[in-house]
């Protein structure tokens, strides 16, 4: 069983953390992953940086740009992850845009993921129908779970379609907005979390976008299985470097 599914099957709410691979320093990737697990994080999205991350906000884009400048590439990332499974057991997901994967070769990319122990992918600009038609078999062959997004504007019909094709969790975008914006969740968003929860989908939902502290994490996970924090963690890295990751995680899980 894929580590993602194992984790989803357990009781309790899941805290997932996103960061850009190669940020703040090129060689920080593995140690950040290790520290996150050590501090009780349940799952990690490793951002593969891209020059034109159109679904990201300024914070993540800035960390991506810095990571690229540091020399991050798909090859460098796979090399940094090649021994990761010697020390880390929580699910690892690579989150990135499709073009770098396409250039690497989708099959080769998936094979590499499997080889280093990555469990899944989140590719914001690979639409579900294209995946369905062209890439599903490759992902399956390498045991990779592809994670799809839904938003408050996603229709019931499309949610069902996404649920049907999903194998891990559904990435529930808290609001139709790029990452890092917003300021806690309002009634509209919590109503949306509940509406989706009430659909009793086959796959659990993990909320992303807009979670930055204990309060918003609790709001997000009232109806969902977990939540992903990205921008807030990047900001923490920018301000405090890689030394005080424990402080950040403790503040969320307090």
């Amino acid at each position, binding site marked *: 069983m894929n580590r993602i599914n194992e984790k989803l099957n357990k009781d309790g709410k899941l805290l997932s953390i996103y960061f850009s691979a190669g940020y703040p320093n090129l060689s920080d990737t593995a140690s950040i992953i290790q520290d996150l697990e050590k501090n009780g994080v349940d799952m990690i999205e490793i951002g593969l940086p891209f020059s034109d991350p*159109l679904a990201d906000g300024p914070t993540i884009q800035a960390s991506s740009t810095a990571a690229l400048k540091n020399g991050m590439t798909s090859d460098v990332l796979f090399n940094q992850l090649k021994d990761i499974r010697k020390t880390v057991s929580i699910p690892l997901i690579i989150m990135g845009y499709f073009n770098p994967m396409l250039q690497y070769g989708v099959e080769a990319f998936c094979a590499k993921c499997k080889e280093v122990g990555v469990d899944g992918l989140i590719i914001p600009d690979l*639409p579900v129908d294209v995946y369905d038609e062209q890439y599903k078999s490759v992902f399956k062959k390498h045991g990779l779970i592809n994670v799809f997004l839904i938003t408050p504007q*996603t229709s019931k019909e499309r949610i069902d379609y996404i649920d049907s094709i999903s194998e891990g969790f559904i990435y529930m975008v808290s609001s*139709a*907005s790029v990452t890092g914006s917003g300021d806690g969740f309002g009634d509209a968003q919590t109503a949306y979390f509940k509406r989706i929860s009430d659909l009793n989908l086959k796959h659990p939902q993990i909320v992303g976008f807009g979670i930055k502290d204990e309060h918003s994490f609790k709001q997000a996970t009232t109806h969902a299985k977990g939540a992903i924090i990205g921008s807030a963690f990047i900001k923490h890295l920018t301000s405090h470097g890689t030394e005080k990751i424990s402080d950040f995680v403790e503040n969320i899980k307090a």
Partner: protein
Amino acid sequence: GYYGEFGGAYIPEMLYPNVEELRLNYLKIMAEPSFKEAFDQLLKDYVGRPSPLYFAKRMSAKYKTKIYLKREDLNHTGAHKINNTVGQILMAQRLGKTRIIAETGAGQHGVATATVCALMGMECIVYMGEIDIARQAPNVARMKMLGAKVVPALSGSRTLKDATNEAIRDWINNPVDTHYIIGSVVGPHPYPDMVARFQAIVSEEIQWQLKEKEGTEKPTYVVACVGGGSNAAGAFYHYLEDTDVKLIAVEAAGKGVDSGESAATSILGKEGIIHGSKTLLMQTKDGQITEPYSISAGLDYPGVGPMHAHLYKTGRAEFMAITDDDAMLAGLELSKTEGIIPAIETAHSLAIFKYKTFKPEDIVVINLSGRGDKDLQNYIEYFDL
């Protein structure tokens, strides 16, 4: 939504409802008589169509062939861009949108968008790279005169590509009330198709105008410059299936195709995804999109529309790459020979006569996509006028 292997809609789920709404409705709306009527009326009375098909007598004599110029430079706001923005603003109205966003590089599409928003009394936000804002002050002023808000794109290289990213982010954040007016035949389906259909008026007119002048609807060649590719899409559109008509797409070679400072996307690009579309784009071997270079701000886009990627791949169109220097000289030549100062984009198309010889009986239609007033500063500096 594909041209051969190119096209599609490689968009984040957040954009799916917007793009899907457009995809489901655009052909239906465009087919409505009231839409057609409003579009045709504005093209005629507001844009000033039909734009003339002008026989360039002195250029023809010089190059010993029959050269016709399709005068998109005479359109309101000075380029072909307005054909598309007029179409899209009517589309946005019919989709019930109240807020318009756009990206712009040199500012021409921004001006064309701000123009139609003023015309319709709609809110208009134009994203423009911070560097481009500094470089293109007159067009920024035009947009402000027209009531648009110009928002600087501060990320990345702070040019067109980043302005496009910012516009897409805005759309993601405003999925219900906002229509995104893309300025070229790029972006996710249905944009490339929709924009091409709005620009198709160019070749539609060439057909009947050439019939009047030469007794045939078919030129031997249709020539157009390609950045994103909208003016070429319009000029080629009704000839795409007719292989009697040869198509020439002219890209910007910048300081030379192999100089490392170029925007010859088709020749230098590899297949990939940019701004929601699978096409040819300039990128590193790792798939990072690179910043192109051309003296022409309208041609330095790292991608190309999927239609053009397909025309390149299939050989349906011949692709030529013209350097800055050749383009500038061709712009000066047209000015002195025909009294028409072309946009530097367009000047690339005019430079092909240096490299390609035509027969006396050939009919060569060049899409004169825009006027050069916006480029005067460049011309002044280049030629030390």
